[in-house]
């Protein structure tokens, strides 16, 4: 059975801190790994990674994939209160996405 595990389950930090969110996966016929941010409503797409070692960046957010060790990390530098959300990791394999349960990130002003 395909599985995606995220850690930590929740994280509370102060504004300005840097955080690292973890995602490990066991997915048959792995094709890609995706990160989403979910605030009150719809998950919004952040990154899709398909190759090991190539960092994707968008402003203060970055992510990297390790296909040998079957994990990905999402880094957020200089955190802001607007970064408070649930971050979802998902892995694509066998024509479907398998999601982790998410990391709830809270940024204290």
């Amino acid at each position, binding site marked *: 059975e395909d599985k*995606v595990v995220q850690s930590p389950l929740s994280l509370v930090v102060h504004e300005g801190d840097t955080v690292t969110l973890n995602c490990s996966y066991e997915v048959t016929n792995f*094709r*890609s790994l*995706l990160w*989403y941010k979910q605030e009150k*409503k*719809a*998950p*919004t*797409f952040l990154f*899709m990674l*398909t190759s090991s070692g190539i960092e994707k960046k968008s402003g203060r957010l970055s992510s990297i994939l390790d296909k040998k060790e079957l994990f990905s990390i999402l880094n957020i530098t200089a955190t802001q209160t607007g970064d408070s959300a649930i971050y*979802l990791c*998902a892995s*694509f*394999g066998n*024509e*479907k*996405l398998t*999601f*982790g*349960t*998410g990391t709830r990130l809270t940024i204290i002003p």
Partner: protein
Amino acid sequence: DAGITQSPRHKVTETGTPVTLRCHQTENHRYMYWYRQDPGHGLRLIHYSYGVKDTDKGEVSDGYSVSRSKTEDFLLTLESATSSQTSVYFCAISELGGNNQPQHFGDGTRLSIL
């Protein structure tokens, strides 16, 4: 934002009643998906569609049916709702499906079965 509209946004109904949720897209994307999101389980795929009248089951399809008669609309039906189907339901779309296209989500429908 992807042009996805889910309706209704909230619904409360009783056990045993039929319920239909609607997903409407304005992107002309081929693939559409229904997920449910529950605490401790993350998002789980119920059914998906890869074209008009072409649908397939996901991992939690029991008790649900779907229909897609037009590219823009994907309906999820609970024939006889049960309390275990209380959840938040999300529709998602992707242009081509497969591993090279991310899915984009609607705002969800919060469904309570009493």
